């Protein structure tokens, strides 16, 4: 979905917007995939009635959304050759991140994980940016057979990731460097008021929507 409007509040890659949808009480948080001038690109998967309604919107429809939500990724720690690891619906926010890192002259490696070939998306877009892209599918129908952890490069200076919890757990064990994880949680407000999405960290409780969604490896309290 591409939207045109005031994107001034959108800063770091890894931030999200919160969409108001007719007939739904709560807003829908969607991570920012790309922003170019006043054009905002959001990529979402139809998982429930809300995203279903979004998929049925016709071009030209007006949407109310809150922008610039969440902390986003901290690029200052990337080093020269950062690694970006995306799993399924976690892939989109890495696109703007890759763009920004490349603009800083970094060598960006991207590993994208999916269940099967039909689910693979955006690998060409990442390549077009100039990233070095590896795809992994669980059933081997595209790229490396297995999980993203089976497709990690040998050396990288730092990592950034977004994806499902099982991937995070595996990745956390597999990585050799420090890095940042972008988490998902059911949110009430999306701007830090309701404490609906709090999680425990090694440094006290954090709100995924306001203190997150990106947390550094060192602060995460792994539970299962």
């Amino acid at each position: 979905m591409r939207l045109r409007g005031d994107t001034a509040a959108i800063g770091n890659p890894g931030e999200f917007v919160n969409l108001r949808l007719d007939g739904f009480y709560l807003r829908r948080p969607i991570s920012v995939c790309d922003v170019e001038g006043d054009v905002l690109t959001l990529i979402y998967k139809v998982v429930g009635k809300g995203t279903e309604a979004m998929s049925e919107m016709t071009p030209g429809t007006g949407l109310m959304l809150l922008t610039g939500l969440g902390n986003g990724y901290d690029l200052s720690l990337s080093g020269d050759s950062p690694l970006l690891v995306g799993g399924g619906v976690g892939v989109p926010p890495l696109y703007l991140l890759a763009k920004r890192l490349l603009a800083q002259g970094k060598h960006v490696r991207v590993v994208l994980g999916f269940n099967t070939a039909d689910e693979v998306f955006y690998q060409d877009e990442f390549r077009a940016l100039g990233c070095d892209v590896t795809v992994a599918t669980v059933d081997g129908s595209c790229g490396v057979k297995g999980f993203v952890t089976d497709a990690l490069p040998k050396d990288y200076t730092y990592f950034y990731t977004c994806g499902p919890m099982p991937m995070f757990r595996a990745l956390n064990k597999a990585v050799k460097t420090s890095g940042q994880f972008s988490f998902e949680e059911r949110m009430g407000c999306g701007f830090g008021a309701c404490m609906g999405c709090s999680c425990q960290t090694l440094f006290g409780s954090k709100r995924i929507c306001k203190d997150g969604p990106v947390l550094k490896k060192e602060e995460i309290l792994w539970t299962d």
Partner: protein
Amino acid sequence: MDRLSVNLCGITLDNPVIPASGTFGYGYEFAEIYDINCLGTFSFKGTTKQPRFGNPTPRIAECTAGMINAVGLQNPGVEKVIAEELPRLKQVFHKPVMANVSGFSVEDYAFTCEQLDKEEQVGWLEVNVSCPNVHGGGMSFGTRPEAAAEVTRAVKAVTTKPVIIKLSPNVTDITEIAKACEAAGADGISLINTLLGMRIDLKTRRPVIANTMGGFSGPAIFPVALRMVYQVARAVKIPVVGMGGVSSAEDVLEMMLAGATAVEIGAQNLVDPMASKRIIDALPAVMDRYHINSLSEITGGVKNG
């Protein structure tokens, strides 16, 4: 006196609009969005004696015209609230604030209220005997008249500021409990807290809320809230603060006609961060439409059906 201003337990509010506890944090998230000094006041995040992380996530479920939350009184504890939150709050809000307090024993309530009562900026103590999301406490105090009265007495004994008891709607007869609190010395009653609700995720066949049930709020509960405000306002002589699904200036007027002196805005702040300001800005025009000169005149003004 301004046409919007009302008097709540001896303190004049510029308008009757009060963001409800748990939907407005300690004010600063909203202060980043608009100047919150336009508010009558606001009720800050429910504070307990000890720090609490609250319930496991997911804590939020969506419903038709509403939401369920099971945050479970997450807060840093009264000591930290006084040491860290209130000084920050003072930076962005310059009016008396409503201190919302919860507890797990009568002593908890009294201790926490006594501490907050000493804080200069605290104008009112809102004692929540109705949290549906904590076990062995919260709501259980709000479902038995004697228990609610006992908390009220204990708090009144150690405080000087007006004490408003926040009641649960999950009871057979809310007027009994309101009357017991009034008899025990309460200066006001606020209602309603959330209705106990539940949703199930058909995909996982589990409750959407990790805690199974939670507090249901939003426009969906407005008719129940209005009914209880009406019943309680006729049962007690102390001021009533109405809340529950209020999302427009019209809703504010309906609550006041039913008997509310002031009105709290809850869930609507979460789906529209500007909601409370929008409602305040809309009031004068809506009052004109219904020939209401001054808000302070309409409290309890509903005629018999």
